[in-house]
């Protein structure tokens, strides 16, 4: 992308579960499939994954249960030790870290939110949120102040003295989010944070999450099994199946150009007009004659529906948010997307 190095860089990462995975991986012939590995008595949690996460980017890892998405994120945070390949966080190979350094890394750079919240039942909201600060030895006064700050940020003011079981699911997850943010992490892992919540609350929490992200601009790895959620939140989506990444791309690309049949199945029922942006559909200018006012590249085709239908130009100039023209959009193509015709 740019000169800044990726925050997380995974190369050929393998995570095998079984009796002696390292030895097996070494002796395994290349190109063995998930099922073949399984008949050998091993489960490929993560199968030869190479992926990068850029600073400030939100990567959503999408997959059904058992696809290896949770395993992959646990490899990033070294909750699992990987079997093969390398993972670098800020240029540092995390497999080479000592226990001490790993603890330091987690205490200062990483935050994680869990599907079933993972709150400590015997601690109040305040003490749960302050927990990571307490672990790194911050003094009582400091950590209380910081904890109150994040509690306010997630909108739980006035509940500081409650115990987790006295809160609703949505509120508990807010505690989980607050806890993961307490140490001001650079990298934020969210493992299906909203899956255990009711649909209405889930929607509300997604909005809340987008608001937080806009404010904080963290590097995020977000896991979900919900394709709509992925489309809604992601800068890029990685779709996983049987431990391997099927496709990793922007939502627009995934919807418009699914690279495998498996990915295509997910995109089938999606209203593409609501996902695809004008800039995603645009082609390079390449000497086309442009006339008239440009349209906003950041808007979805659905949002541009009225313009597309009423305008009679064949080619529409597309501009980025600074008003600079970056490409052209064929009106017909856009109308096809809008009408659901291929």
């Amino acid at each position, binding site marked *: 992308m740019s000169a800044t190095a990726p925050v997380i860089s995974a190369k050929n990462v393998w995570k095998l579960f079984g009796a002696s995975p390292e030895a097996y991986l070494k002796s395994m012939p290349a190109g063995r499939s998930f099922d073949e590995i399984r008949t050998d008595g091993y489960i490929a949690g993560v199968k030869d994954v190479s992926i990068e996460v850029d600073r400030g980017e939100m990567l959503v890892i999408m997959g059904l249960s058992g696809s290896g998405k949770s395993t992959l994120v*646990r490899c990033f*945070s070294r*909750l699992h030790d990987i079997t093969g390949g390398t993972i670098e966080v800020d240029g540092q190979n995390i497999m080479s870290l000592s226990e001490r350094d790993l*603890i*330091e890394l*987690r*205490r*200062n750079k*990483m*935050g*994680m939110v*869990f*599907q*079933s*919240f*993972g*709150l*400590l*039942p*015997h*601690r*109040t909201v305040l003490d749960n949120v302050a*927990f*990571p600060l*307490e*672990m*790194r030895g911050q003094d009582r006064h400091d950590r209380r102040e910081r904890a109150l700050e994040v509690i306010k940020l997630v909108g739980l003011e006035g509940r*500081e*003295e*409650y*115990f987790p*079981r*006295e809160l609703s699911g949505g509120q508990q997850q807010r505690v*989980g989010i607050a*806890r*993961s943010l307490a*140490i001001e992490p650079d990298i934020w*892992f969210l493992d299906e944070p909203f899956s255990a919540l009711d649909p209405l609350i889930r929607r509300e929490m997604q909005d809340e999450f987008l608001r937080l992200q806009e404010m904080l601009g963290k590097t995020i790895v977000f896991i979900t099994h919900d394709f709509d959620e992925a489309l809604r939140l992601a800068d890029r989506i990685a779709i996983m199946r049987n431990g391997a990444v099927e496709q990793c791309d922007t939502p627009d690309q995934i919807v418009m150009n699914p690279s495998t049949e498996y990915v295509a199945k997910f995109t089938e029922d999606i209203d593409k007009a609501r996902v695809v942006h004008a800039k995603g559909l645009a082609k390079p200018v390449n000497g086309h004659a442009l006339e008239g006012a440009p349209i906003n590249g950041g808007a979805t085709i659905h949002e541009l529906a009225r313009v597309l239908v009423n305008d009679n130009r064949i080619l529409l100039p597309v501009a980025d948010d600074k008003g600079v023209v970056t490409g052209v959009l064929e009106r017909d193509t856009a109308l096809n997307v809008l009408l659901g015709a291929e």
Partner: protein
Amino acid sequence: MVTLSTDLTETSDKPWGRSRVLTALLAVAFALILAKAVGILPEWLNRIPEAAIPPTAQVLDAIFSFIQNDLGLIYVTRFIAEGPLEFLLDTSANLLEGKRRWPYLGPIPWSAIAAVAAVVGYAVGGWKLAALGAGTFIWTAAIGQWKIAMQTMSVIVVAAPLAFLLGLALGIAAWKYGWFERMLKPILSILQTLPFFTYLLPAVIFFKVGPTAGAVATITFAIPPMILMTTLGLKKVSPEVIEAGQMSGCTRWQMLRHVYIPAARTEILVGVNQVIMLCLAMVVLTAFIGMPGLGAKLLAMMGSFKLGRSFEIGITIVLLAVTLDRMSKAWVVKQPVHFERNTPWWKRHQISLVALGLFIGFILLSQLFPILAEVGRKQHLSQGKEIDVVIKSFLAIEAIKGTTEWLRWFLNVKVLIPFRDTLLAIPTPAFILIVVAFAYWVGGRRPGIYAAVFFTIVAFSGWWDRSVITLYTVISAVALATLIGIPLGVIAARSERWSKSILLACDTAQTFPSFIYLIPAIMLFGVNDVAVVFSILIFAAVPLIRYTIIGLSSVPPEMTEAADMSGSTRRQKLMSVQFPLALPTMAVGFNQAIMFAFFMVIIAAFIGTQDLGQELQRTLAGTELGKNFVLGLNVSLMALTFDMAISSWTEQRKKRLGLD
């Protein structure tokens, strides 16, 4: 003979592949019995000849004395006994019963203790438990048993926390290190089936007579469940909570201290409850090595047939048991509740302050009114003699007397003695083969092999006849308990109200120290075999009833509804839907009944039996550590045989039914 042969055809009719092995085992057993009946069986096949029995007890004695004297273990244990342990026991004894030792403060007035018990009860479980706590201690003081009750309590308050700490530490170690757990598991299952008397003698030898030995034996007995609950709780901590801890940057120690142990709180507290209850049950039994307290008094009163006083002491013990049990269980389920911000300090600690206030208040009051400090000899309300008269006159009523005497005669002459003589007549190898066949039939190959090994060891221990008598008592009592308990459970399970109240009664009865069950048995039947069987019977019937109700009521409603909609009668529903599904749970109850019976049969030696328990009790008077150990191990091995067979059956069955 005839029944045996029909048994044979029945088992071989079963459509299982193991029928051939079973046939072979039983055929050999049958042939041996037949040979003995005809009189052609050589004596060495009937009983193992004296000469072939290895001198296990002597060898063990030599080993023990080597460890004790040559390795100097006795100095270590004696140091612990006379040093820290005795110090703790003396301190608690001074505070509770006024023994003249450091810190020379006691005894604490009974009224102050009762008041604190009430506040603690209120804190964990509201007014009901407050009343129970206060009531128990008021009763104990009023009935004139304060001092002996406090002698018992002073050991418990030392033994229970120590057992808790040791159990917690060992439990954590077992959870942390797989090899340690694998090593510990078999030891724990032996420890849990070893009769209590086997703990007593080594305790006396290594830790000197008196409260220290009692405390050591009690602690040892109470540790295993604490270990098991700790490991269980730690293993059950949700993986996300663990990961949350790791992602918060916890070090190993922080993980354990701030994440694992608090998250396993429930299981650990259940362990605490079990520790307390076992301590109470065991401290009462230390009466057999002459420890003063409620147990000793009860033993003396029963020995001299003073039923009224025994009855009163029994009530005290039961009340103490129920109070300790209810309070510790209430603590298990009690969840923290938050205070609003800016709640003043005194309000946050309101309950502790009230307890402290009442404690000091009653101590001061008792200076003014001595009756609040101690209920004197002439002031107490004991009605021992009067109750004695009532009980005796009740038992003397013609109808009652007729019934109990007939029962006694019937059971003794028609059931128990013939059964015992039959068992004793079976040649040793045949007996072992039958037991192996049973274990194999019920539990499969592994339990069968263990049965063979275990019973062969018993045969070579030199105490075969006594072991058979022990087994006979257990089998008869459990059989009778099954005949009574299962129908009772089935009837109770029909209505929700009934099952609830009977379950409550069973749960309460299970908290009573086993000793208590001897009281009604002696009252009704006097001192003989029937009383032994009867006391075991009621003790063993409790888990049977309990698990029958639990098993039947946990059958999923959609299954009984399906049966109803298929037009089955109540009987059909019970026989073909509820029973098959409840059977694994009921088997757990059956297993527990057998374990309880093995436990009780040894205690019942007090009434006068001719089994292992009697011999064990005799060893307590001397120093025959080896013999004591062999006897205890015999009981343990027999109990383990049944435990393994039934547990393995339960597991297979559950798997096949797709339960848990």
